[in-house]
Each structure stands twice: as structure tokens, then as C-alpha cells.
């Protein structure tokens, strides 16, 4: 296999694996930029995956081709509702945000499996029939070398993920809403003094993170796994959290990191059929994203600074 052939093999698969990570990591960026740590991303993805699969199975006959897209909407709404629980706990109830996030993760997987067992009478759902399609992007896919690598047989979910990343960058850095969001995460008291409703901004941010993580989970379930069980979203949410940190709390950085992690994930799966890479023990590829995140945090790959007020409940009138 030539080098170029290997690239044609890996790059599309990396982008394919990265799509759910990109969306979820961007969700994390919104939440943490507003000052709310969201370790619950994993749980939000689980609910997204569960509802996505459920919707797909139940309504595939009714909606046909449109089913996966409508399933994304259903998953988004479900995860948004679950994220409200985290918002209420960490913003209104002043709970420890990390603990609340852990509770969200436990709750989501337990609730999803409980319902799966109740509905299907077994620990796993059936496989879905309606899946996302792949497309050759006109004109662009005809470009030599780059065309087949990036623009042929692309999942439209990958395009959606990249589009949302760019949109998120625009919203966070180029709009008044984004400015307020960041100010609330850096110095909530100053923001409050300027008349910004800190609690409301944080609620909105957590809900956005829930919505995006829900879509991410549903995409993962409907493109990669095809069904839902307890191991479907096995650490994808934490991987997204890692991507967010690795990307230094910046939407495009998070996207880049997610693409890289997607690359690592696809390597660990397609690696055994690629020369040289098949000689590397699989475990190194599996732990690569996590090790890199630790190194990034330790400052070996450039300092990453979290938003200053991240994790601190804002209590009005307290200095």
C-alpha cells in the first residue's frame, strides 16, 4: 500500500470518527466559557445516542430518508433537557459542578439502559435501518490528490460538525452574545456589574452544550455503532472533554483536537491493515489521546488556560 493510498484510507475515516467529538467538544467550550464545568458531556452524549437510536427505530417507516436527521433533533431536545438538571444543580443550587457532572453521567447511562431493558426486554436495542448517507461533493472531489482525500464519500454529518465549529467560533468571538458569555466565565462579578444576567447566560451556555452533545451522541450512534447498549458511548464524552482542553477552550482548537483524536481512533481500528502502523501495539494508539491531553495540561504542548471563573458558583453580593 502506497503512502497516498494509506492517506486516502485514513483521512476520511478520521473525519468520520471526529464528527461526534467535534460537536460535543464545542458544546463543552460553550459551557466552560461561561464558567460551568461540564463533566456530564459523556452522559449527555449517552442520552443523545439513546434517543437518536430509539427515534430512528420507531419512525424509520414513517419518515424514511429523513429519519436520521429528525432523530438528531429528538436527541438534541432530550440532551438539552438533561443538561438543565446539571444547570439547575450547578448554577441555582450551587452544587459542586464536578460532582453534579458525575451524577449526570451515572444518571444518563442508568436511565438509558433501564428504558432499553423496559422497551426491548434485553440490554441492547435492535440495529437501525436508516443511516446517514455519504456523498461526493461536486467539483471539489475532482481536485487531484486532495479531492479523493477530503471531498469524496463524505458523511454529511462531518460537514455539519465542521460548519457548527466555524459558526461557534463566530458566535463566541464575533458577537455581543459571545463577549457576554466569555465575560461571565472570566469575571462574573464584573459582568454582573455591567448588567449581564450571569445565571441566565450560564443556563443558556449549559443548554447549548447539552444540545450539541446530544447531537454528537446521536451522530455517533447512527453512523458508527448502529445500535445502543451500555458500551456504545464508551468514553466519547470524556474524549470530547479532552479535545476541548487540548484545543484550549477555543472552538476551532477543539475541532482540530477532535480531528486529531478521530485520527487516533481510526488508526486504532484500521491500523492493523496498514504497514508500519500494524507493528505498533494497539494499546499505544488507544491511550494516545489521553496521554496527549495530560501532556498538554502539564504545559509541554503550550500552556492552556481555563476560563478563570470555571467551576466557581457565582453568588451575588459575595466578594
Amino acid at each position: 500500500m502506497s503512502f497516498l493510498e494509506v492517506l486516502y484510507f485514513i483521512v476520511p475515516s478520521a473525519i468520520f470518527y471526529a464528527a461526534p467529538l467535534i460537536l460535543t467538544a464545542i458544546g463543552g467550550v460553550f459551557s466552560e466559557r461561561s464558567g460551568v464545568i461540564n463533566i456530564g458531556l459523556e452522559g449527555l452524549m449517552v442520552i443523545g445516542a439513546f434517543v437518536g437510536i430509539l427515534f430512528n427505530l420507531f419512525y424509520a417507516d414513517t419518515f424514511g430518508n429523513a429519519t436520521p436527521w429528525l432523530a438528531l433533533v429528538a436527541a438534541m431536545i432530550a440532551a438539552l433537557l438533561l443538561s438543565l438538571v446539571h444547570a439547575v444543580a450547578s448554577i441555582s443550587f450551587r452544587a459542586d459542578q464536578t460532582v453534579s457532572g458525575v451524577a449526570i453521567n451515572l444518571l444518563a447511562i442508568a436511565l438509558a439502559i433501564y428504558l432499553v431493558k423496559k422497551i426491548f426486554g434485553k440490554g441492547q436495542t435492535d440495529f437501525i435501518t436508516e443511516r446517514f448517507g455519504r456523498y461526493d461533493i461536486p467539483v471539489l472531489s475532482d481536485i487531484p490528490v486532495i479531492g479523493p482525500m477530503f471531498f469524496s464519500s463524505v458523511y454529511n454529518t462531518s460537514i455539519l460538525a465542521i460548519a457548527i465549529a466555524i459558526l461557534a467560533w463566530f458566535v463566541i468571538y464575533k458577537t455581543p452574545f459571545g463577549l457576554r458569555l466569555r465575560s461571565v466565565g472570566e469575571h462574573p462579578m464584573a459582568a454582573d456589574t455591567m448588567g449581564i444576567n450571569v445565571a441566565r447566560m450560564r443556563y443558556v451556555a449549559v443548554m447549548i452544550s447539552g444540545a450539541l452533545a446530544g447531537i454528537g451522541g446521536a451522530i455517533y450512534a447512527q453512523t458508527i455503532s448502529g445500535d445502543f447498549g451500555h458500551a456504545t458511548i464508551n468514553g466519547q464524552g470524556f474524549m470530547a472533554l479532552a479535545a476541548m482542553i487540548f484545543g484550549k477552550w477555543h472552538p476551532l482548537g477543539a475541532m482540530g483536537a477532535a480531528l486529531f483524536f478521530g485520527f487516533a481512533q481510526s488508526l486504532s481500528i484500521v491500523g492493523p491493515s496498514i504497514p508500519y502502523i500494524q507493528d505498533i501495539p494497539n494499546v499505544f494508539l488507544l491511550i494516545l489521546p489521553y496521554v496527549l491531553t495530560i501532556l498538554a495540561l502539564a504545559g509541554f504542548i503550550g500552556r492552556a488556560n481555563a476560563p478563570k471563573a470555571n467551576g466557581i458558583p457565582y453568588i451575588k453580593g459575595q466578594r
Partner: protein
Amino acid sequence: MSIRATNILVPVISVILGLLVGAIIMLISGYNPVIGYAALWNGIFGDMYTIGETLRQITPYLLAGLAVAFAFRSGLFNIGVEGQLIVGWFAAAYVGVAVELPKIIHLPLAILAAAAAGALWGFVPGLLKAKFHVHEVIVTIMMNYIALHVTNALIKTVSGGGDRTESIFASASLRSEFFQNLTEFSRLHYGIIIALLMVGVMWFILEKTTLGFELKAVGFNQNASKYAGMNVNKNIILAMVISGAFAGLGGAMEALGTFEYVSSKAGFTGIGFDGIAVALLGMNTPLGVIFGATLFGSLKYGALNMPNAAGIPLEIVEIVIAVIIFFVASGYVIRLFLLRAAKKKEAK
């Protein structure tokens, strides 16, 4: 109402709310909560066998809870207990199968190996926190996944490509004929004694040693501790190492007591994450951990009876546990509520 009373009331109310939410979910999904909770109760206290198994289930929770609580007391949040427990599990099982020695050497060696492995897994986030000010929460989460993948790969190597190791030699086993005869041949093992001993050790370290005093001081206020001449960095690392050692011992309980082997895992055991709940419920005190672990160990083991006896998916108990954690974390609101209720009483 005194602070002490509210401190005890918050977890109690959280548990009640958790059970209530569980009952509501059972009702909505068409199950009878009374039958469900009866099945849970019988699953915990049904006969001597189930009581033995419940106690066995409590054992690793005791150690996971201690690990989280110990780190908490030093102002650190160790979410990595899960990973530390997994490496401890592997290390103990590995020593158990790799060599055959007289019991008096073999068993302590296997236990120590588990503690050392857990301590190593706690040392990394401790070191990074102390030297580079990296938040331990993220590092420990990442270390969990590294532990999972690395042990899976090691199990494959050790077992020659298989999914589990051989069973450990009897000389490394915690199995107890005395307990087995007492409890109709449940898998209850001597580990529970080690776990309770460790509760004592944690109490002793925190309350009776200089180290414990310093750890608590660092937990309360780092700057003041530094000003008082304490080596804050050393204390952070030490706290994570000791916490990791407790967690590793939790793994040894599974490796040497319950299963007597280690198998590769598709996902986490969940014991480490539940340890967070155990510690929170126990207000991070050694005695509290006993209560927390008893509650969670009982719920977890009792839940196994629910699908058979009542046809209810056992995940209902996981939901209850999550809700309990949620309310304990939101203790502020419960305190507020209690305060208002107390004021109303006074006004009357």
C-alpha cells in the same frame, strides 16, 4: 438547628429523595415500587447467603470511599479511583498467578502490589498538580482510561492472548472457610477485615499524626499552610499517593477475594465512581465512609434480585444512586430548606 444535625440530615434527606425518585420512575414505567423495593430488601437481607454477599460487595466500596474521602480532606478531588482500582486489581492478580510462595509471604505481597500500583496511578496526578498546577480532576479522568486500556493489553499479554488470567494460587487468596460456613457459602472473604482496618488507618492518619494535620490544613487553606511552613507540594503528592493506595487495595479485594482472577473489561467497574458517592454521603469521615459503603454495597447487591423477583431492570438502583449524589452535591438547597423550616418553627 445545629450544624452537626444538618450535616447528618442532608445525606439522610438525599437518600430518601433518591428512593422517592426511584419509586416515581418505577410507577411511571408501570412497575409496582412496593414490590420493587421489597425485592431489593430481600436481595440484601433475604438469607445468610445474601447477607454474606452483600458484605462482600461492601468491601471494595469501603476502600473506594476511603480513597475519595482521603483526597477530599486534603482539598483534592480524586475521580481516578476507578483507574487506581483497576490497576490494583491487575497487580494483585498478576502477583497471585505469577509466583507460588508460602501464604504468609504471597498474600501480603499481592496486597502490597495492588496498593503500590494504585499509589503509582495516584502519584502522577499528584505530581502534576504539585509541580505544574494541573487540575487533578481532568488528569485522573484521563488516567482512568489509560488504566483501562493498559490493563486490558497486559491481561492479553499475561494470558497469552486470552481475555482473562488464570485463577490465582490459593496461597494468595483471601478466601475464608470460616466466613463461608457462616454464610451458606457466599463469597465473603477476609478482605472485609482489611477494609475495616484501613478505615482505622485513615482515622489514625488524619487525627493522630502530624502528616494528617498538615493534610487537613492544606485542604482547608493552602496559602495559610504554606505560610505556616508546611511543604504544600509534598502534601498534595502524598495525599494522592495514599488515596491511590486505598483505591488499589479496593482492586486487591476483587482480585484476591471475590473473583480470584482479572479479566479484560469493555468498560469501567463503576466501583470507583460510586466511591465518590460513598465519600460524599459519609461527609469524608472514616466512620461516614462505613455508612456510605454499607448503603451503596447493599443497594448494588440487592439490585441484582430485582429483575428475577420483580421483573424490574436493576438499573433502577443506579438511577437512585445518581439522584442521591445529585442531591448530596446540592446540599446547599437542602440546608436552606432546613434553615427556613427551623425558623418557621421558632416563629411559632
